């Protein structure tokens, strides 16, 4: 992956309270607008950020009940890449053990949830998950132009 200069970076700490994910989505929108991201791509970023926050709210059981986000726009001559990290200090999980949800199974299942990671992976250009007993960090990337910086 090519190195780019960081053009703008914003950090945000959110309490794990209902609907706080909307605050994160608003910051994502502001950063996407700063870098001139297309409206459809901006919407995809917003939804992915919402899902990453909800995952932390619902599953992390972090004692500090906080989610830490960093939004970073980078590029050389112009903004090219938006990288967002969503971090919690919860108990972590093993991404390899997360079952890929399937609609035909979910329709018959009592528990219909568990779609967050699938949605994030489907909407963002790159997704990395690091998780251990000290917490989880989801790093998501969206490029302004397909194929740039990769």
């Amino acid at each position, binding site marked *: 992956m090519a190195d780019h200069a960081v053009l703008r970076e914003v950090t945000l700490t959110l309490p794990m309270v209902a*609907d706080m994910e909307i605050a994160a989505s608003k910051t994502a929108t502001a950063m996407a607008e700063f870098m001139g991201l297309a409206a459809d791509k901006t919407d995809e970023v917003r939804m992915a950020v919402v899902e990453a926050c909800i995952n932390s709210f619902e599953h992390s059981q972090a004692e500090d009940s906080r989610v830490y986000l960093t939004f970073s726009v980078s590029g050389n001559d112009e903004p090219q890449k938006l990288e967002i990290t969503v971090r919690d200090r919860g108990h972590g999980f093993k991404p390899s053990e997360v079952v890929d949800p399937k609609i035909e199974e979910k329709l018959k299942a009592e528990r219909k949830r568990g779609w967050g990671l699938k949605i994030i992976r489907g909407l963002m250009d790159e997704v990395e998950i690091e998780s251990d007993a000290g917490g989880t960090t989801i790093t998501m990337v969206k490029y302004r132009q397909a194929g740039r910086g990769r």
Partner: protein
Amino acid sequence: MTDTLKVTLNKREGLSVIYTEGYINNQGGEEIAKIAYKLIEDGERKILLNLAGTKIVNSIGISILIEIIEQILEVKGRLGFCCLTKTIAKTFHIMGLAQYADIYDDEAAGIAGMNS
């Protein structure tokens, strides 16, 4: 901070159209489900969800929509969606909802499609 979902219902041309305005999260999904289940209980078998007023959904809200799909399929009915943003449509495709619910570009296409 909370974008409370506003839900309205219009019965027209042989089906029920549910309009949403705002964020479809767990509360929003429950609001839609309350209306949809009442319609199904009253014998409605064709429900079109017009999401023109919704720009963002989350997976908890969509999970409730999956419950509605399950309920309407059980009574051999149909659930359709129309007026989705590109991202919501893409999300529904990622999840596979399009296999079990019809997705239309606009309300006129939805009404025509569900009455066909």
